[in-house]
Structure formats: structure tokens, C-alpha cells
């Protein structure tokens, strides 16, 4: 077994007294994809920002570690983090329009990124841009390079951002809701593109989404997050077929399907919790169909089962339900 590229060990992030992330623990190896699934406020984006140490003002890592290639990123200097961001761990976001400067060409913006990290002459940098635009299947790379963002479609822009992230040849790519702003067909194309570029580059991929479909198509393992905590962690097939957590199961059941059209969708009552609510016990307790008195008093630990982990007192009983 090769060593993990990135390991989060009980990472805890707080804003004042509010716990935003509570003991997040998982790891990912080179060539692997980990998926993070959750709804708003689950902490899935906060997890990505905390890996890159890009926490919003007033939000601080309050415990645990983020180990990348064996060293804790929180022991690195600001200078070292700047050199690492983008170069070793790259990130792409939901809205490609918001990630680009509207009044500069794609070439100018890609060039900034390359020059910040590589000492290459103009010709080599141009060749690098073309190489990675070809990798993301943008055929007319010269035309794309001389375009402004508004001249390209949303799907093309997301390809440009993937090329921009890949052109520094990172060890890991974090994709935060990479397909949410896109139409269904383009969404599938971008998912297939991410699969392809990962195979070709051998990097590790972390894909964050509210959409189980997107994540399960890409990831070998999935972390399900709820209210800033891990609800469950397991291999994708295990999560989809034999989840041991009531939230994961409910979320999977509440999705409409084109193959099996339900008479009525399963629903989870209530709304996802705000940060710090409920104060005690399991975060999912107020919405959980399996809740018991204990769930309101104490938060369930992450139980190990098989090769997965689950935060539910009743995970053994759920095996047979």
C-alpha cells in the first residue's frame, strides 16, 4: 500500500465558540479520488479551504492536522503555503465566470499562473498553455487563448479552468461543485473529462458536491458530511448500497430518478442545521427517523465498521434495515 498524499487527522475549525468542522478525518492517495457529499452548511467547502489554509477572517483551525506529503500544512510558513497553493494542490470552483477576470484574455490569465510558479520563457509558456488546453479537449487552443471569458460558453470556461489548474502539474486537484452551474449534458462531459485527466496525470482528486450522482461517478471513496461533522465514510459502492447512516440513506432515497419513477419522494423533514445547532448530541437527531433519547444527549463517535466509518449509535441495527 502506497502512502497517503493528503491526510486530515481530526481537523477542527472554529469561528469563535462555534465549531464549523469537527474532527474531520480521511486521507487520499495519488491516483485516487475522494468525494465529499453534503448539503449547505455541511462544511464541505470549509474542508477544502482549510486544506489550502484559505479560511475566512475570524475562522481558525483549532485542532488536528492537515498532512500533505508527510508534513503538517499548519506548520508551514505563509510563504511556503503560497508556493504550494496551485502548484501542488490546485482548486477549481463552481462558477467559472467568477473565477476569471472579464477584461483579460485567457492567455494573459493562464500566463500569470504559469509565471508565478515556473521560470520558463514565453515560447515554453505558450506551449504549456496549448498542451493543457488540448488535454481538456479544447481543440482550437489558439482561438481560446485569444478569447475573453464572455466569448466562451460555461462548459468551455470550466474546461479552461481545469486546464489552468492542471498546467502547473499539481499532485492534487480539489474540485468544489465543478458541475453545479452547468447543464446536464455539459455536466456529464466535465465529469468524464475529470476522469480522463486524472487517469493521464495520476494526480489525486477531491470532488465536492451536493450531487451524489456526480460524486459517485468519480470517487472511489465518499465522505458524507452533515452539520460540520462526518456522518459516514466508506467505499462508494458501500455508501450507495449498504449505507449505515440514516442521513446518507435518506439523502439517497430523496433523489428523483429517470429509471425508477417514484410515486412519492422520500423526504427528510426540516432543514439542514445552522452552525452550532443543535448544541448537544447528534446533529441529525432533529430530522432522524431512527432517533432515540441518547442521540439528543451525546454526539455519536465515528465507529469503525469493515473498511468504513459511521457516526451513528444504531449503525449495527441499520445493517438489517
Amino acid at each position: 500500500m502506497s502512502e497517503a498524499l493528503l491526510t486530515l487527522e481530526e481537523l477542527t475549525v472554529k469561528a469563535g465558540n462555534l465549531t464549523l468542522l469537527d474532527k474531520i478525518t480521511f486521507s487520499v492517495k495519488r491516483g485516487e479520488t475522494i468525494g465529499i457529499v453534503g448539503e449547505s452548511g455541511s462544511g464541505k467547502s470549509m474542508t477544502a479551504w482549510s486544506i489550502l489554509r484559505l479560511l475566512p477572517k475570524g475562522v481558525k483551525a483549532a485542532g488536528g492536522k492537515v498532512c500533505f506529503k508527510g508534513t503538517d500544512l499548519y506548520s508551514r510558513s505563509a510563504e511556503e503555503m503560497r508556493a504550494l497553493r496551485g502548484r501542488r494542490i490546485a482548486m477549481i470552483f463552481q462558477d467559472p465566470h467568477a473565477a476569471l477576470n472579464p477584461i483579460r484574455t485567457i492567455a494573459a490569465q493562464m500566463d500569470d499562473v504559469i509565471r508565478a510558479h515556473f521560470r520558463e520563457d514565453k515560447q515554453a509558456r505558450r506551449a504549456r498553455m496549448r498542451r493543457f488546453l488540448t488535454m481538456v479537449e479544447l481543440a482550437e487552443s489558439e482561438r481560446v487563448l485569444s478569447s475573453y471569458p464572455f466569448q466562451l460558453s460555461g462548459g468551455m470556461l470550466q474546461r479552461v479552468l481545469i486546464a489552468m489548474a492542471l498546467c502547473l502539474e499539481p499532485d492534487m486537484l480539489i474540485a468544489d461543485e465543478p458541475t453545479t452551474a452547468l447543464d446536464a449534458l455539459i455536466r456529464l462531459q466535465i465529469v468524464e473529462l475529470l476522469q480522463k485527466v486524472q487517469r493521464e496525470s495520476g494526480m489525486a482528486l477531491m470532488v465536492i458536491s451536493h450531487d451524489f450522482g456526480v460524486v459517485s461517478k468519480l470517487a472511489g471513496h465518499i465522505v458524507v458530511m452533515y452539520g460540520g461533522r462526518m456522518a459516514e465514510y466508506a467505499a462508494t459502492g458501500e455508501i450507495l448500497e449498504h449505507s449505515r447512516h440514516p442521513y446518507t440513506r435518506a439523502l439517497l432515497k430523496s433523489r428523483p430518478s429517470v429509471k425508477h419513477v417514484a410515486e412519492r419522494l422520500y423526504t427528510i423533514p426540516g432543514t439542514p442545521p445552522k452552525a452550532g445547532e443543535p448544541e448537544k448530541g447528534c446533529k441529525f437527531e432533529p430530522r432522524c427517523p431512527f432517533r432515540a433519547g441518547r442521540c439528543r444527549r451525546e454526539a455519536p463517535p465515528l465507529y469503525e465498521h469493515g473498511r468504513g466509518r459511521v457516526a451513528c449509535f444504531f449503525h449495527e441495527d441499520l445493517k438489517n434495515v
Partner: protein
Amino acid sequence: MSDQKEALLRAVALSQSYSSKHGRIRALNSVSLELYPGETLGIAGESGSGKSTLLRLLSALEPPHEGEVRFEGKIISGAPVNERRAYYKRIGIVFQQPRLSFDPRWTLFRSLEEPLQINRFGSSGERRALVLETAEKTGLDEELLNRYPSQLSGGQLQRAAIARAIILKPRLVFLDEPTAALDVSIQAQILNLLKDLQKLEGLAYLFVSHDISVLAYLATRIMVLKNGTVMESGPAKMILNEAGNAYTRTLLASAME
């Protein structure tokens, strides 16, 4: 069977084009459709398919270049403003972004009461009773009515948008991607609410979405639009199980499950 009933909404050969720098752009190309009382017609299409243009023409926010729209047999498209106003009272619209659909300075109660005031409905007490009744139907607690949009979640606001769309008891509601901006667990709540209200109020829906799995859940019939042209149209079961059109099949395959 549907042919014996009178169509609630009927569009015949709707075409629309806009001028741009590069000449005329044809946004909609001879689209015809019928919607019967109590049914849901799902319009599936991606960006640029013409589904938003179609919605604007059907809701008489804009007259078509060619073709006509009829509601209960009466021509709506290009009708004088007083006739269109009468039509607006009979329809409701729910948009994708509930936060953009409400005045941030108004309480929810005021936003729900506004359509009643505009239409000079009843006394203040009667209006209040109808607001409360509609809020209950859409699953909004009474205490939420005193809140401002910033104090409500996306799901609560979308329930409020639905409440406002049905408060004048329309026969037809246009739904423009009503769950695209919501969390998965909230999407299911809203879709079930729409299903229940349809039965309770005898509503017809025209439901526009790029997500065919959402349409699969609610639609009686589905129409697939691409580049302003109808690719395929028919009973939802047929479209989902034996689509004849290659584009429809690609769209179905793109639903990652």
C-alpha cells in the same frame, strides 16, 4: 382521452426571433403544445434551448413573432393589456431563485397579501384569513409570516413563492426550475408539495427544467426542446422508457444516478 377535454393552454406554431449583432437569432421555431386541466407538461432543455423564451410567450410577458397562445380557448398572445391582465390573475409563476422573487424590505405576510390587494380582494380580515390558509397549505408556519426574506431559508422562501403563486387560486402555474437552487433534501420536500397542491387545487403545471429526473417525477407529458425546436414530445412514460429521438436519449443518459 385528453382530446375530448378542452385544452387549458394551447400554443400553435410559436416562433420568436431576436436581432443581435450577428443578424436575427431564431430562439423558437414553430413550437405547438397543449396543456390540459390538472396535468403537468414538462419542458426539458438546456441553456439556449428556447425554454425561457417559450415561458415568456406562454405567460404573455412578450408577444410571439408568429403563432398564437390560447387560454381556455381565448387568444392571449398579442391581446390588449386588459385581457392580458385578466389572464395574469388566472396563472401563477414560480422562478428558480426565490431570494430574487421577494422584496427584501417586506415581511412575508406583506408579500403574500400584495396580489390580493392589487386585485382588491375582500376586507383586510378576509385577506389575512386567505394568507394564513395558503401559508398552511404550503407548509409555512404562521410565525414565519412576520419575518423578512433574509430571515428565511431557501426552502422556506420557495414555499412562500409557491404560496404567492397560488393565492389567487389560478388554474395554471408556470414552474421555472423551481428546485434548481435548493439542497437535495429540500428539493424532495418542494416536489412533494407541488404534487400535493396539484391534487388539492386541481392545478395544471407547465414545468421547465434542464434536469429530466425532476420532470420524470411530476410530468404527465414531456416535451424536449433543443435550439428552439421540439425534438420529441409525448407521454412521460414513453419519453422516459422508449425515447425515439437521439438527443432525448443523450439527455436521459446524462442523468447520473
